[in-house]
């Protein structure tokens, strides 16, 4: 496990701005899909132990829906996670389909498909911004969805992805619907090589 060196203030600031623009595009995409106003409450960039993600929710045992995919290009690789606490995930499905559902069931193919597509659009919009910044075409994997306790979902995803460190530079965005009180969190976790690619592309020493 190799510790990640903390980037300079200038680099953190550049990443933050990149995160802001990427998030704005992702939120715009979601807003257009749902035809709803969405407010961004937090955008943050930091090097954190991935377990800190748990503190944003009610601990590792809280039930969540997580859509995740891998963005990749030449010398660039990063994971994207879109996390909804389960009451919010159900609300998102209802907002997108216009149909009320009694509960969110892992066997309901339409609900799962809707959440994956929301992840697909938000992550796609975010990666489009990243592609513009680094001047490369970025593709991504087919979105996957896990519905379980947050700790269990994150552990299995991180093992699957063979993330080489327990720490990562995380670009975090929290967003909410003012009227519908629905919160979600979008995380982009680039590898350390990808961070160098980004800084070389945007000319930040």
């Amino acid at each position, binding site marked *: 496990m190799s510790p990640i060196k903390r980037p300079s203030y200038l680099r953190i600031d550049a990443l933050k701005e990149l995160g802001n623009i990427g998030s704005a595009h992702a939120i715009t*995409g*979601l807003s*257009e*899909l749902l035809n709803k106003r969405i407010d961004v409450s937090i955008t943050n960039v930091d090097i954190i132990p991935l377990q800190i993600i748990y503190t944003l929710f009610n601990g590792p045992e809280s039930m969540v829906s997580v859509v995740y995919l891998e963005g990749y290009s030449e010398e660039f690789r990063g994971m994207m996670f879109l996390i909804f606490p389960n009451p919010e995930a159900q609300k998102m499905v209802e907002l*997108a*389909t216009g149909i009320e559902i009694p509960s969110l069931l892992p066997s309901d*193919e*339409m609900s799962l*498909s*809707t959440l*994956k*597509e929301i992840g*697909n*659009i938000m*992550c*796609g*919009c975010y*990666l*489009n911004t990243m*592609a*513009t910044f680094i001047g*490369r*075409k*970025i*593709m*991504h*994997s*087919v*979105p996957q969805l896990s519905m379980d306790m947050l700790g269990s979902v994150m552990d299995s995803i991180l093992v699957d992805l063979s993330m080489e460190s327990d720490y990562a530079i995380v670009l975090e965005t929290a967003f909410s619907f003012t009227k519908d009180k629905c919160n979600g969190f979008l995380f982009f976790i680039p590898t350390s090589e990808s961070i160098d690619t980004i800084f070389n592309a945007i000319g930040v020493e």
Partner: protein
Amino acid sequence: MKPRVLVVDDAIFMRKMITDILVGHGMEVVGEADTGSSAVEKYAELKPDLVTMDIIMPEMNGIDAVKSIMAADSQAKVVMCSALGQQALVQDALAAGAKDFLIKPFNPSRVIEVVSKILGQVPIM
């Protein structure tokens, strides 16, 4: 006669959304596919007037599927539908033979405008 469309996307939610838009504007969705390879097979079987094609899908991506469809039928009319609206990808899709590119999320009038233009029809709004 109603234009016959094949809708290709791995998300049922998005296939339903596109189908609702097309059917609501006087078109017929004759088939759906959820992978690129299934799209190629269904195109050969159904010979639709138009295909809406996602890019990121399991088995075969949408750009490779367009190449296969165009290799079999150079007159095929395919419009890409993807959230990955990067200029390089749009160029790849057009080079593969796609007629236009719709960036998700899209509004119904934009879908109908593009589809009608490709089919050489006056859009029914």
